[in-house]
């Protein structure tokens, strides 16, 4: 339903666009290159504010561990730039999109368990609030407690608070080497118990996932697809000699069945990061969900859901992240199973479904009221991405 797309090329133009929208009472859909448009609720806005014209790295200093770029900078170009200097964004975000889109959607991959999420690596921001005021928050150094940590609030706010124009992120050395221990044939509960053991070891595990038989069979990595059953994965990363030593010790401790070397390991964890093929069939009749739960409760949560629904799952984050495909209209059943705490997000479903479902876990009333006040403090007239996270916000 977008009528016009505004594509500013400077922060001043972003401010003008928001000022116009504010004065005209016209909400804006905030976009990078639109790669994550399917995440969250559809925005009802007559106009789009396309920030992909604000593109380019402003400063990258590997020794300072910081990178500052305009929000519309494509992530693929940042990834290449960092890789050239042996660095990366440690939280293992999915590929594609823009830096602004990545921060706004607050994503993280398997290394979330050891390296944190987008919020942990967002050091500074500049942007335009829904009051059409350009402002900045945070800083451009890795350690800073001056004033409120506004950059964290921006991470995962889906453009509902501020149209981001510039972002400073923490960058870190990419691991020199990677290996993955594989354990075959464990059921979900035994697998998560094994992942717990790995995570309790002093070997600095940076990935802990479990692929039940169906998911494992779809893998492009031969040792996983050919295992003929469930495969449990434990990743070790770092300097060569360190990885080698830890692989030996942890393999022994866990009685692992096999070890993947660097290339296969990288390929496998890319699959895990991107949903291990679980979302590929998702669309009309199956919807893809992500559940964040206390890690030890992952399998029991799934068991509860399975009593009523036919679902396919796999586990990441040591059991704390459950990827799950479910039939339509499963939101209530899935959320009712989260008795131990946590939240469920509908990450892939047709637009009409996302418009009619609580895509993000509904908040308790006092928290929703506070969230509403926070939204209003940035965007009192609801100009920026209205409804993207919650209906009426």
């Amino acid at each position, binding site marked *: 339903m977008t009528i*016009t797309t505004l594509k500013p090329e400077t922060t001043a133009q972003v401010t003008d*666009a928001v000022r116009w929208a504010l004065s005209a009472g016209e909400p804006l859909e905030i976009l990078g290159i639109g790669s994550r448009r399917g995440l969250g609720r559809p925005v009802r806005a007559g106009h789009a504010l396309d920030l992909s014209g604000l593109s380019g790295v402003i400063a990258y200093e590997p020794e300072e561990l910081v990178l500052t770029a305009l929000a519309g900078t494509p992530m693929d170009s940042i990834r290449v730039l960092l890789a050239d200097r042996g660095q990366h964004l440690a939280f293992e975000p999915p590929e594609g999109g823009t830096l602004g889109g990545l921060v706004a959607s607050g994503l993280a991959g398997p290394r979330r368990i050891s390296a944190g999420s987008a919020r942990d690596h967002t050091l500074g921001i500049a942007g335009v609030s829904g009051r059409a005021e350009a*402002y900045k928050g945070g800083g451009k150094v890795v350690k800073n407690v001056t004033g*409120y940590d506004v950059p964290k609030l921006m991470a*995962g706010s889906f453009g509902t608070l501020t149209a981001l124009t510039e972002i400073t992120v923490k960058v870190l050395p990419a691991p020199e080497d990677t290996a993955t221990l594989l354990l075959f044939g464990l059921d979900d509960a035994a697998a998560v118990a094994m992942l717990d053991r790995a995570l309790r070891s002093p070997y600095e595990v940076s990935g802990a996932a479990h692929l039940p038989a169906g998911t494992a069979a779809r893998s492009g990595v031969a040792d996983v697809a050919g295992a003929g059953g469930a495969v449990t994965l434990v990743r070790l990363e770092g*300097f060569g000699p360190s990885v080698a030593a830890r692989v030996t010790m942890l393999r022994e401790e866990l009685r692992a069945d096999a070890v993947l070397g660097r290339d296969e390991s990288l390929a496998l964890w890319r699959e895990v990061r991107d949903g291990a093929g679980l979302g590929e069939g998702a669309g009309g009749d199956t919807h893809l969900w992500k559940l964040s739960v206390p890690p030890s409760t992952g399998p029991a949560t799934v068991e509860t859901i399975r009593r009523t629904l036919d679902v396919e799952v796999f586990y990441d984050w040591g059991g704390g992240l459950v990827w799950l495909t479910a039939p339509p209209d499963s939101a209530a059943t899935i959320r009712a199973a989260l008795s131990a705490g946590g939240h469920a997000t509908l990450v892939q479903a047709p637009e009409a479904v996302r418009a009619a479902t609580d895509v993000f876990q509904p908040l308790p009333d006092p928290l929703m009221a506070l969230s509403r006040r926070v939204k209003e*403090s940035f965007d009192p007239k609801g100009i920026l991405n209205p409804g993207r996270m919650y209906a009426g916000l």
Partner: protein
Amino acid sequence: MKMPVPDSGIIARRREIVEALRAIVPGEGVIVDENELRAYECDGLTAFRQLPMVAVLPSTVEQVSQVLKACKAMGVKVVPRGAGTSLSGGALPLADGVLLGMGKFKRILDIDYANRCVTVQPGVTNLGISNAVAHEGFYYAPDPSSQIACTIGGNIAENSGGVHCLKYGLTTNNVLGLEMVLIDGTIIRLGGKHLDAGGYDLMGIITGSEGLLGVVTEVTVRILKKPATARAVLLGFPSSEQGGDCVAAIIAAGIIPGGMEMMDRPAIHAAEAFVHAGYPLDVEALLIVELDGPAAEVDHLIDRVEAIARDKGACYARVSKSEEERLAFWAGRKAAFPAVGRISPDYYCMDGTIPRKALPLVLQRMQEMSDRCGLRVANVFHAGDGNLHPLILYDANKPGELEAAEEFGNDILRLCVEVGGVLTGEHGVGVEKRDLMTDQFDEADLQQQQRLKCAFDPDGLLNPGKVFPTLHRCAELGRLHVHQGELRFPEIPRF
């Protein structure tokens, strides 16, 4: 330093306010006696002192909720306090305010190894968490130097760091869940034992909010397995520039040490004279680089760090051969503050962060300032993350020296901002750096932060006079200055 003018109307109602608090927190939980109130007159920033109107020490969440609700109803200001170890005056009381002490919240509520987290009340000390899980080989990573005394509630308020935070993160990177009470008495819970609290990252805003947004009543933190090995290497350089280059080269080589500390000549000499750590005295800069992790990794990296240091002109290198020796390396650094305290009647500790590459320039300019004002300065530096702790030496008994030290400190912090850094890396803004906020932030930046404050505390009753140099009414901050139809469609490329 000007605090908000005390409201004589509130002070006149003291008796009524005390009675209202006594109705909520019985017995000794409400303190009015001047001698007893003395215990709360300052925090770690002892240059500023103020007796609170009354202190209240609740022991249940329900009491905290009722106290805040009552204060809001009466229009009374509230200053939350943990152990009072803030170095920036975050817990400085108000003459017309209630001091809300959280010292009775001392229980460890849940230790959950299967989910690698611990839930505690906010009055539990930072070290208390690590001690509670030490027998299983776990610890809580952020380790501010006050960790014996400081509480986790205060750590949340200040987003505390420590010498290991380059590798393991600040408080904010290690908190999983919070329970907190808003000024209207509402109890909210954020996060839990799972990762990523749903909705807006309010936990991210509350952590480091210096007691301006709410009162934390329960905290869930993640715990980590202790590294299998830790070894340290002591490196001396003929110039601080070479020391700084070495730090940059270590990081550029992909190495993130568990700790990487730098000291300048005055700090080295003071520390050595105090604890006899065996530091070389003929160097301009001393680095302690600690590598931790699996033994194979530590051995590998120690060699690499030594090679890098030689390449960068190190004139002294010593690798710890035992746990005893490693601790001795640290003993000097950890005693740096009291060591400086021995060579000067008083010292003032600053806390700016700079891009590391600016270190030589900052040290040189700091020396010039020191020469100008006649006060000596010793530097200890969390070199890995650019967090500088200049210690300004002065004598409070000499007229004008305290003021000169404060002015020197302010100039150092302005310099940090000028070179692209920030006012505070870990100590917080509090009252100490409040009036410098305009050096780092524009009016629009500060107003947006204050609007966020209004979302939590519309009457501005929680810890006023801290962080923000100018107090605005929320109604005034919320006013929109854009009017219907004032603008035509903007001249922006469109499709």
